[in-house]
Structures are given as C-alpha cells and as structure tokens.
C-alpha cells in the first residue's frame, strides 16, 4: 500500500502579502489586492486593473524576474516551515543526501517587449524551475506547463511520485508574473479579462451576475510534500494531508471551459476516488472561480453533477475575488489557503458577490468568512489547454 502524502511546509507571495499569514489575513477579511495598472499604458478597450504584490505595484517593470523573486520568497517560507535547509559545501562534498528530491515548479517564463538588443525574454520556464530547485538544494526539477492548472498539476504529480516510491520529499507549486504588456494584452485580446467600469477592488466578482472576466494577478506558492514515513522519521510536523488528486483533459477547446462541465466533474470524481472519500466527506470547496461568465457557470454545473443533493450543503469560496487570477501560481496559492482553512476552521468569503447569478446557485459565502469544522477541502484549478485538476486536502 502506498505511503500517505503529507504537507509539512507552505509558503506564499500574493497580492495579499509576502507570506502565508498576510495572504490569509487578506482573504479572510475580504480585502482586495487588485489595483490600477501603472506599470505600462492601458487602453479603453483593454482591462486596466491587476492583482499586484504589495511593493511591486508602482513604477515600471524591473529588469529582474518577478517570477523568480516571488518564487524564491515563497519557497524559502515553505522550506523553513518544513525545517529543511540546503546542505553546506562540506555536506555536498561528502555526498550527503539532498534535502529535497525534486522541485516541480509550474510557471510560464517571463517576458518584456523586444528591443534592439533583446528578444524580450527575461527568463525561460526551465530556468525558473532550476532557480527554485537550486534554492531548495533539490536534486532535480521539472516545470509543468498547464496554464492555470499548472501548480495543481505540480502538487498532484508530487503525490504520484511519492506514492510510487520515486521521491520522499518534493517542493511543488508555481510562480507567475504575467502583468507585463505582452501577456496582459494577449489575454485581453481574447476578451477573457474584466473591462467593467468599477472600482478596481470590485472587478473580480466570481459567481456574481455582473462578472465579465478575470483580473490578471501575480504571485507564487509552494508546498513541501513528503511521505508520512519520511516526515515522522525526521520529526517534521504535518500541516495537512494531500488525500486525493484528479486530473482530466476537457478535449473541448483551447481556452473555453466545457459547457457541460464534464472535464472538471471528472477531475473532482477522480480526486475523491483517489482519496477514497465520498462527497459527504467534503466540508468546503475552494473553487477555481475565475469571474468569467463561462468558467463560473461550468464549474457550478460540474459541482452539482458530482455532489448531487449535497452540493447545497458545501460552502464554496473563490480566493480570486480578493487576489485576482495568479495563473500558474493559483492552484498552489489556493491549496495553501485550503490548508489554512483546515488549520483554522475558517472559510474565506467570496468578495463582491452582491448580485448572485442564478446559474451559479451554490452557497458561495457572500459577505464574511464563515466558521466550520472542516475535515476535507476540495480545491479546483482549470487551465488554458483544457486541463482540469482537483486536489483533496485533509486535516493532519
């Protein structure tokens, strides 16, 4: 029987702050990290707001990689919480085992606009993963390219590799900083971002009838995942258990969610099957909830399909209502916040849910955070390319 997989460290950098604690306080209070974009010129026909990490919201884009800056900061927090430190030069020379077997780092690289002396690339996907792996003193790295499901894929792959006995400790998550002209306006050209005329903090309104697109955001989050046996042997404290993982392909469209919710529903079913749980074991859902018309109705349909009559009894939240959509980092950020829900018994609200859409008729926690006894939280992440990923996290 496969060893169970536990989480022993978490770290996050988000528009809510430079740590898990700051991010958690932000979403629980329903505060917004969405600001007007000042880094570059925006247009009347484009989105004009974004979720920005505090201290990085003003001034022009820096020359260095923000993805790496956020990623390294979040990875450091997770590794410190797990009690893992890089080997010294002496320990390396003595060939002592690396503290982390593998770093799985979802990201999409980072670009500026091309100039006479540069093709615009700041750093590539593999290089970002290698930088995080180097920080963690991991033996090797890889980089899932799964769009908004990427870091949920990373976490799920870590689970599979630990269960298969091919790794004991994996640092998994993602980092993305796509509030740059190329990526911002490319997304805008697909009409998937909010252009609503409203205060920035109200632009992301998942499950609300007024929603008109997502708010692009930046951030990073990492989890230290390890086998229960390994964690116990080194005296590490488990924060939570990664009980289940489901991953499916929609095979429908490059970026539109399936109107029947089939891929997301199958991912949720597989995650529950993997965890050997039934829907009544799930006390809370951390939704993908992007604030696009199609995602939120499709996700609602999928949740109703899977949870049946129990769907009305499960409170659902979208952290994107406060943080915006952090792309390759969102799955890991929302997994971290799901773990915080398990640890504190608090479910963050879905902000800006003032006019509930009849097509999104779940209990989406409008207004204020809610208390509850939480055994398992299901976290959904769906991405461009048709990826649907679900994680089931359980109390330690």
């Amino acid at each position, binding site marked *: 029987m496969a060893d169970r997989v536990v989480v022993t460290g978490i770290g996050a950098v988000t528009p809510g702050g430079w740590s898990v604690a700051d991010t958690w306080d932000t979403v629980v209070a329903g505060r917004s990290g969405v600001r007007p974009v000042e880094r570059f010129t925006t247009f009347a026909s484009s989105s004009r707001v974004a979720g920005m990490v505090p201290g990085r919201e003003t001034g022009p884009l820096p020359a260095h990689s923000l993805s790496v800056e956020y990623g390294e900061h979040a990875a450091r927090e997770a590794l410190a919480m797990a009690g893992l430190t890089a080997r010294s030069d002496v320990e390396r020379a003595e060939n002592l085992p690396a503290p982390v077997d593998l770093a799985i780092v979802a990201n999409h690289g980072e670009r500026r606009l091309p100039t006479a002396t540069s093709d615009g*690339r700041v750093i590539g996907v593999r290089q970002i993963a290698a930088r995080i792996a180097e920080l963690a003193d991991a033996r090797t790295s890889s980089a899932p*390219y799964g769009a908004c499901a990427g870091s949920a894929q990373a976490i799920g792959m870590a689970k599979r590799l630990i269960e298969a006995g091919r790794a004991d400790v994996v640092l998994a998550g993602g980092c993305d900083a796509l509030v740059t002209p190329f990526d911002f306006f490319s997304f805008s050209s697909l009409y998937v971002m909010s252009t609503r005329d409203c205060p920035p903090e109200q632009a992301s309104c998942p499950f609300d009838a007024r929603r008109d697109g997502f708010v692009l955001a930046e951030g990073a989050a990492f989890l230290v995942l390890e086998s229960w046996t390994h964690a116990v042997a080194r005296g590490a404290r488990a924060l939570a258990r990664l009980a289940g993982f489901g991953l499916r*392909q929609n095979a429908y469209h490059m970026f539109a969610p399936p109107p029947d919710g089939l891929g997301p529903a199958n991912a949720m079913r597989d995650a529950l099957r993997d965890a050997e749980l039934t829907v009544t074991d799930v006390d809370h859902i951390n939704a993908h909830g992007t604030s696009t018309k199609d995602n939120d109705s499709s996700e609602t349909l999928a949740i109703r399909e899977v949870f049946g009559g129990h769907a009305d009894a499960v409170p659902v939240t979208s952290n994107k209502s406060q943080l915006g959509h952090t792309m390759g980092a969102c799955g890991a950020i929302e997994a971290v916040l799901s773990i915080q829900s398990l640890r504190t018994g608090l479910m963050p609200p879905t902000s800006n849910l003032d006019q509930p859409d009849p097509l999104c008729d779940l209990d989406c926690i409008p207004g204020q955070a809610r208390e509850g006894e939480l055994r398992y939280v299901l976290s959904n992440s769906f991405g461009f390319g048709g*990826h649907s990923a679900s994680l089931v996290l359980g109390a330690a």
Partner: protein
Amino acid sequence: MSYRVNAVFDTATDPAPIRDRVRGLTSRKISRFLDAASFAPFLAAMSCYRADPAQPPEHVALYTVGGWDGNMPDQPSQSDGSPDSDALISRHILEEANPVDWLRMLSNNPLCQVSIAEGFRGPNAHLVGGPDALAQVLAVAATDLRRGAARQAIIVAYDTDRADRGNPSGRAPTSAAALSLVLDDGENDGEDMVSRLFDVAEEMAPGADSALDVLRACLAAVPVASGATT
C-alpha cells in the same frame, strides 16, 4: 500485473514532410493552431494511438515532455524603452495581432490540440524539461494506469535543435517520439516493461541532451507487444 508497450512512433522514421502528414490527418479547425513547434508531437501522439487504439480515447492519458520553451511571436517593431514605444507595440498585440499566434506559443498547445482531435479525456500534463523529466512522466503515467485513472497512456517527448529551443513556435521545427503503455490484467503476465523503461531512462538521462533522446533510447530497448511500430 505488468505493463506492456503496445505501440511506438518516431517522426525520424517518417520520410513524408510532417506538416503535410498532419494537415492530411486533421481538420482546418485544429490545424490552424499548429505550426513548426507542434506538428511533430501532434503527429506522434495521434499516430501512436491510431496504431493501437486499445482503449476508448476518453480513458487515454496523455503526457508530453519537451525542451522547447517558446518565446513570444515576432513583433512588428521594437521598443526603444519609452512609454510611447511600448504603447505602440501593446496596442498592436491588443488590437491587430492574431491571438492564434499567441496560443501557438503555449507549450501545452500540441497536447491540447491532439486531445481535442482524438478525444483524449484522461489525465494529462505537459512538462517543459530535460532528460530527467521523462522518468517523471513514466512514473506518473504508470501510477495512473495502476490506480485506474486511465486505461492507456500515451507518452510523447519532443524537442527542437538546441539553437531553436527559445524560438517562437513558427521558427522551432521539432522532432518527436511516442509510446503507448497499457496494464495487463495478469492473465498474460510478462516482463514488466515499465521497470525496463525506468532502467533505461535513468541510465541514459545523465548523458542525454533531451527527454526525446532518452525516449528514443527507451524505444530501442523495449519490445513492442503488438508489433505496432510506425
């Protein structure tokens, strides 16, 4: 239980121009999303499955791994660093550029397009990675099969010449290889091919240039159960 390799495919063995092969196999709705970077992995995944459609496509897992990490499409002008110059290019991206050019740049595009074309609805992921990454997707695919999350797994590795690895998708012609993995129910228990694949992958990875090189070494080392080599 043991794992079998039921089919393999390598674009290197196919003399026909890859672009023509792909365009002959799929509709315009799909092919318009494909270009130099994605023709080979698309063809490899599709050909491997069609050589051995052992299970319905909704139960097929697809994992792709490649070293190509494409940059943004070529832009009509360069920025001089001023806000006005940046705004000129930004407005082009927003209002004039074809969004399909951007979608082609996404490294998971081949996986997505072949999944739509063939109806693959199982577990799936694309890794941007080097030689080590092949063993990772082999392990994950094998676990999917053992746990029943998929009944068949297609694993594709693809890459471009080293000099083209950072190029936009239209200027990064790739080669690809693929294998199809299934789990025996125990009645025909033979040698477990996943163990042999891991042995080869781990032996080859340290000296290899790409996951594609490692997969090709694997294909040379394992017998194909159905003889479906294309």
